[in-house]
């Protein structure tokens, strides 16, 4: 029930596909998405030029400002800020619409809709025929939720799209994530792709050998076995990786190179983020 799941589920409506096909499509999309993000992260835009640590901290500040707000105007102001950032960072509107706005509307919008009736408060209109009362509080509540979720999701997507993920990782160090945590995250991300590949190959080879449709119980057995195979491969893989690490001198402690240098423009950007987030919070308290 996440946005990603809705995205992944979307194409399956058109035609009934086997679970194997659907899983393959999902796995392929996950890989494509990250490829796209990597390309965009290397284009020449505003966010792309900023030190990743500043970006992580700054985006987090904007996210929190959006989460704290009690005023729809402030949330919309932050949303406008997100749009401006996207524009200056050459993130196409199409991407935002396709990856965030529409999925969020489909999920959160539909979820928030009944709230306009169920929230107690001042009735402002009645549905024809059914006579249900729409309350002012209900409409505000639904608006709060939708605008807030859209704004927050836009900020986090901008961060992901405009920063190579390896930089996001290293930038986590400024949030006091320990080195070992950063290394584990990096390795996890790296091996997600290998596992996606293994899972995909496994499903594709199964699919090529399947004749006709599998019965429900057979499908479930296949699914259980696939996860099981992946699990035992994981064990072998982690043992081999451990040996490869040892072979190059790994003794349990990890060391990394941190290469970020703060330039004047980065300090400026940091000030900018702080200003916008701070202003949002102050304006919010005033009203």
């Amino acid at each position: 029930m996440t946005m990603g799941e809705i995205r992944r589920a979307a194409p399956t409506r058109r035609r009934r596909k086997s679970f194997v096909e659907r899983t393959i499509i999902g796995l392929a999309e996950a890989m494509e998405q990250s490829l796209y993000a990597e390309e965009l992260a290397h284009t020449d835009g505003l966010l792309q030029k900023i030190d990743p640590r500043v970006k992580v901290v700054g985006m987090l500040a904007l996210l929190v400002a959006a989460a704290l707000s009690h005023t729809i105007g402030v949330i919309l102001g932050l949303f406008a800020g997100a749009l401006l950032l996207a524009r200056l960072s050459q993130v196409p509107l199409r991407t935002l619409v396709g990856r965030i706005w529409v999925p969020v509307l489909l999920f959160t919008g539909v979820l928030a809709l009944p709230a306009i009736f169920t929230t107690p408060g001042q009735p402002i209109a009645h549905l024809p025929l059914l006579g249900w009362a729409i309350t002012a509080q209900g409409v505000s509540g639904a608006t709060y939720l939708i605008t807030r979720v859209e704004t927050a999701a836009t900020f986090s997507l901008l961060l992901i799209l405009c920063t190579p993920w390896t930089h996001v990782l290293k930038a986590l160090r400024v949030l006091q994530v320990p080195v070992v945590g950063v290394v584990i995250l990096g390795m996890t991300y790296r091996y997600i792709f290998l596992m996606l590949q293994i899972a995909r190959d496994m499903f594709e080879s199964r699919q090529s050998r399947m004749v006709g449709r599998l019965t429900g119980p057979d499908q479930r057995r296949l699914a259980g076995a696939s996860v099981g195979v992946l699990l035992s491969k994981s064990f072998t893989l982690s043992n081999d990786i451990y040996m490869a690490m040892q072979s190059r001198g790994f003794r349990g402690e990890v060391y990394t190179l941190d290469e970020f240098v703060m330039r004047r423009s980065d300090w400026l950007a940091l000030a900018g983020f702080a200003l916008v987030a701070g202003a949002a919070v102050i304006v919010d308290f005033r009203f």
Partner: protein
Amino acid sequence: MHIPDGYLSPSTCAALYAASAPFWYVAFRKITRLLSTRLVPLLSVFAAFSFVIMMFNLPLPGGTTGHAVGMAVSTIVLGPWGSILAISVALLIQALFFGDGGITAFGANCFNMAIVGSLVAYVAYRMIAGRAAISSPRRVVAAAVAGYLAINVAALLTAIEFGIQPMLFHDVSGAPLYAPYPLNIAIPAMMLGHVTIAGLAELVVSGGVVAYLQRSEPGLLKITAPGAVGEGDAEVVQRGGWRVARPLLILVAVMMILSPLGLVAAGTAWGEWSPEDFGNAQARQEIQAGSGNVAPPAAVPPGLAQVAGVWNAVLPDYDPFQSGDVNIQRIGYVISALVGGGLILLSFLLIGWVAGRMGRG
């Protein structure tokens, strides 16, 4: 199940980060001691594994498909502490790089799925599997029930977190700032989907994987099956199983009670509500509850409204203390929800226990 940013107030998020922190700390300490230098590769690969199985589109009885979190699978193979860390890392990667689940809500998602999910799965699995042999069908049943329970408890927690939002956080007009539905809508709405589809997905994948591992990699099932028949001194282990399980069960119960109370406290501290408004909203709510339905003109489907009605009947007026004081009412509301949640949990445990008995034969 993955809560996006914007559904929970910052103070709820902070409280759940704080609730998760000690578990992460203990898990990290325990796992480091257990794995020493192998920690990094093992945890990384298993977090990647957790991530990938969350993407599997599982075929369910009735022709639908669903996604599983794999809480029971990773708990059975890695033990509860390893599972907490592996799923947390997978969730962080989902939040940071794939936009599934919010960044501010990461603590909440970890608390619900990685922490409570793993612990519930562990306790249920150990209790039902007992000291059955590694190859026993009872272990398949135990895993299936553990998965089903874990996802449902996680969903219940999510629903409670959603459900307390409109009570604690609204603007001056009384409009809810975050998730807009109170507990009596949030819980049934959330549970309906999880008792059926999502629960089944977890059930299928947990049972299926254990069945597969029994045939081809029984060694992987050993961590959470100490003293399985044919694995050593059975008697010692029977006691050992309970010795390990009982404190964990208590821990889960305590956390369930503490975390929403903590949220209430946090809400007060943040001052994001005013008593007059709250009293107002509460009064309206009571009128509605008295009339036997959620809100007379409700847009919820009739079936759902009915479930909500049953809910109201079980826990009348959400005020067990029969007190007029707003604060007490508020706490009573949360406690009622938890008692309800606990009842669901208990009945699931009972079902699991009966199934385990049958599976043994």
